[in-house]
């Protein structure tokens, strides 16, 4: 007689006890985990100037080279379009405005800002710090439909810089650099008890940087410590015609990855991974080999199974990757690829997490990115001229839209809900700014 292993395995599961799996809880937890992704840190400057403009653009091989130095720019190894290929967005057809707020004179005093949108659609509204607030930052949740503000209890933020990490239905988490850039604190507001708590991480290396911190789908905050700064050539960077340093084709910086709990300061984990820039989608962690320079390869880890793959993103020969964001199965990389004459080669390269090229927006003065769980890439065209202002690229339809022709000198932004976006326009001769929250229409 022999015991058949396969049969014994089957026998052992032939009479299972009652099933303890709650499918409703699976769905609820799954939805929460998807929503949690909206809380992105470090995207502020990128998403800051969202503007909606709509222009339908068919994808491949679009755009025509303009005469002059622009024609000298290398052509990306991807379907390529220009900002001039965008169509002007139309309110009511392409987008709707959900809320606006104007500061008449930010040159004279600090003002009020939109810092993001909660899962239930309220705007995190920041006031100050300024003389009128006794130099303390005040926060409110503002109903975009009515403008009514629910002022939150004082969090004790003082004048420190804050960044929203998570804007949920149940809690709001902000990161503060405590004015030192070496010591961070997470401020968590429980919306049910209306109380604040704080978390610090004494176990984190002091070399960890706030910039680039990302909230993972597991609710942990992922942060990087600088390990190797890219080298500057002997004698410094060459000079451009206008005297600016030409640092295209930089070596890039290498980091070590850590993660921390947002509620337990002793929970600091060495992820034992060398990275450049990092980003998350709902179900994947993505990273480059280096940041702010030649990025190397793009790596993708499936967070459910741990499976990894990597690919060559086919950057231009001189491209520095300055922004690295992702949503769904799309990656958006904001790049500077050199200056030719007086014309910059800036690119917004959009590709899939499998490495397939979707489109590259190449122009003189363009930068941007996509918020977590969003289908809207927000891009700033920051050169003076007809192509300046804020653009949207709709990942669902591949439309490039021009929503505003001018931008203020300030920024606005933070996490938003799907297909919502911020942008800002100047007022009062450029001394003030209007913040806008919009939503892209289907």
């Amino acid at each position: 007689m022999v015991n058949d292993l396969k049969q014994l395995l089957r026998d052992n599961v032939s009479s299972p006890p009652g099933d303890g799996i709650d499918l409703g809880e699976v769905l609820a937890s799954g939805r929460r985990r998807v929503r949690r992704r909206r809380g992105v840190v470090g995207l502020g400057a990128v998403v800051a100037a969202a503007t909606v403009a709509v222009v339908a653009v068919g994808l491949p091989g679009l755009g025509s080279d303009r005469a002059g130095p622009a024609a000298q720019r290398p052509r990306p190894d991807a379907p390529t379009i220009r900002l001039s290929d965008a169509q002007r967005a139309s309110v009511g057809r392409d987008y709707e405005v959900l809320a606006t707020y104007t500061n008449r004179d930010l040159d004279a005093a600090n003002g009020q800002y939109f810092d993001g949108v909660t899962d239930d659609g309220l705007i995190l509204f920041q006031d100050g710090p300024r003389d009128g607030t006794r130099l303390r930052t005040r926060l409110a949740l503002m109903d975009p439909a009515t403008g009514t503000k629910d002022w939150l209890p004082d969090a004790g933020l003082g004048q420190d810089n804050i960044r929203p990490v998570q804007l949920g239905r149940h809690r709001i988490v902000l990161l503060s650099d405590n004015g030192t850039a070496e010591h961070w604190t997470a401020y968590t507001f429980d919306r049910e008890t209306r109380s604040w708590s704080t978390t610090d991480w004494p176990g984190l290396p002091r070399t960890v940087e706030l910039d680039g911190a990302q909230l993972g789908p597991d609710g942990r905050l992922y942060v990087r410590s600088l390990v190797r700064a890219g080298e500057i050539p002997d004698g410094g960077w060459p000079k451009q015609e206008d005297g600016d340093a030409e640092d295209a084709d930089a070596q890039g910086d290498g980091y070590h990855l850590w993660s921390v709990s947002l509620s337990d300061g002793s929970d600091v984990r060495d992820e034992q991974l060398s990275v450049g820039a990092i980003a998350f989608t709902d179900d994947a962690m993505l990273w480059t080999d280096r940041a702010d320079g030649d990025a190397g390869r793009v790596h993708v880890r499936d967070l459910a199974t741990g499976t990894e793959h990597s690919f060559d993103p086919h950057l231009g020969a001189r491209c520095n990757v300055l922004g690295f964001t992702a949503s769904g199965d799309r990656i958006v990389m904001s790049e500077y690829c050199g200056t030719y004459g007086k014309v910059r080669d800036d690119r917004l390269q959009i590709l899939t997490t499998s490495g397939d090229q979707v489109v590259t927006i190449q122009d003189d003065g363009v930068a941007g990115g996509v918020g977590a769980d969003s289908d809207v890439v927000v891009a700033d065209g920051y050169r003076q001229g007809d192509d300046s202002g804020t653009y949207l690229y709709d990942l669902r339809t591949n439309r490039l839209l021009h929503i505003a022709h001018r931008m203020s000198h300030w920024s606005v932004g933070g996490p938003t809900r799907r297909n919502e976006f911020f942008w800002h326009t100047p007022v009062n001769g450029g001394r003030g700014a209007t913040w806008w929250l919009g939503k892209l229409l289907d």
Partner: protein
Amino acid sequence: MDRSSRDADFSEFAAAAHSRLRSTAYLLCGDWERASDHVQEGLIRVYVAWPRLVRRGGELAYARKAVVSAFLDASRKRSSTERPSEVDSERPSGEDVAAQVSDRAVLMAALARLPERQRACVVLRYFEDLDVRDTAVALRCSEGTVKSQTSRALASLRSMFESASRDELAVIGEGSLPW
């Protein structure tokens, strides 16, 4: 894909697959309640990835990997906090088990003594009927690792059956142990 459509499609899949996944999880962890936890966590991960899975197919294989991954993640967490001994002193020895319970209980006790990854190799190869390549994909390791881990696991299982004075353990149709 809107949320209601996503939820409906996912629920249909989960209802059809969860019993099988729970059996796999039970063989991995030896406890039905913990098996339910692993399946619940695995299905949550599947839900998050659902739009992509629907486009690419392979939902069940992905769910199986997610459950195994949830089990291995939980094992790592426990090992970092509880520091269990190599053999649970409260657990009956092979001889005790032999005297008291059936062959299938001997197998569960023997499986529990294997390192997690060896146990996963056995369950995926001989319960899920995955080949070496698919097992390697599920466990994120090389095919050579699967072969060596499986070989060690089966040798250990056979040894434990012998120690318990049970009949020889074999995989019918694949020759006798070890492989």
